């Protein structure tokens, strides 16, 4: 538990989660863990939209803090609506990230990203080079 909060506190500046640090941590998290496999699995399953529940991860907790602290809350409905609008865009797969938390009331935070994909031998797959910033 200590390491959970410790990891998040390393992303703070003046007591608030810093967007630059969070973005970098998020990128590392995506590439260092088995998330890439999960994205590829979702693509293999022919999903047109992916949802990731980050409620149980430290990066999700940091993400939630950033959204709340910066007042950038977006409804799930808006995320989903925007994702559907992006479906026609070639080279990307919409990924909706969400977190649910029960304190006094039930909270749901969400945001959507565009995951770069490429077509390789008639198969769609994750474009890792783009994700790592090489392209």
């Amino acid at each position, binding site marked *: 538990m200590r390491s959970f909060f410790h990891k998040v506190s390393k992303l703070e500046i003046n007591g608030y989660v810093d967007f630059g640090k969070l973005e970098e941590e998020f990128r590392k998290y995506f590439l260092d863990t088995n*998330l890439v496999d*999960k994205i590829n699995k979702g693509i293999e399953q022919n*999903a047109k939209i992916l*949802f990731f529940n980050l409620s149980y991860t430290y990066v*999700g907790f940091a993400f939630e803090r950033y959204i709340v602290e910066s007042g950038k809350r977006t409804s799930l409905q808006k995320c989903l609506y925007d994702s559907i609008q992006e479906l026609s865009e070639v080279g990307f797969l919409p990924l909706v990230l969400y977190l649910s938390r029960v304190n006094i009331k039930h909270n*749901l935070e969400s945001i959507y990203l565009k995951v770069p994909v490429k077509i390789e031998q008639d198969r769609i797959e994750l474009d890792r080079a783009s994700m790592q910033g090489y392209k």
Partner: protein
Amino acid sequence: MEEFLRYSKAEKIEEFLASEPEILEILRLVYWYYKCSTLSATFNCKKTEMRNKITKGLLDLLTPYYSNIPYDKAHDHDFNSWIREKLRETTPLRGKDIRYQKSVLEILRVLKSINSELMIAYLSNNDTIKISFATAATNEYESDYDFIINEGIGAQVKTLFPQDSNEEFFSQSF
């Protein structure tokens, strides 16, 4: 619920607290299951898939006691009876059974994954976005969707758990 009532009556609060995460997760499952069942008749397609996921952990636990009942084809009433009977059979041993504890962790993980799917499916539904369900793929060439948006957009839900240890996952108060 039987366990919940028993622990409350005997005021064995510590024992109850030990079971609290599982009970809460099961209550969440009941809630979102009911909510999704009101969305679309296609929700029936999800039943077998969900049962298979939940009983996978239970079957590991119950292997020594398991009698071959076709749980995936049974009606609701038969399935409920089967679960109740199997859980009752294991009660005397489970306090000392490490395999039971591991199975509970696995079941909890599976329940959280299922609840994630059901919750996001139900909350995504509104006047302009309609959610329906499909049967799980039977081979690698078939599409496999957790739910379908507006009858054509397949969606997959992945629940991420901490990689390094289970300690973080279970010590958070959600």
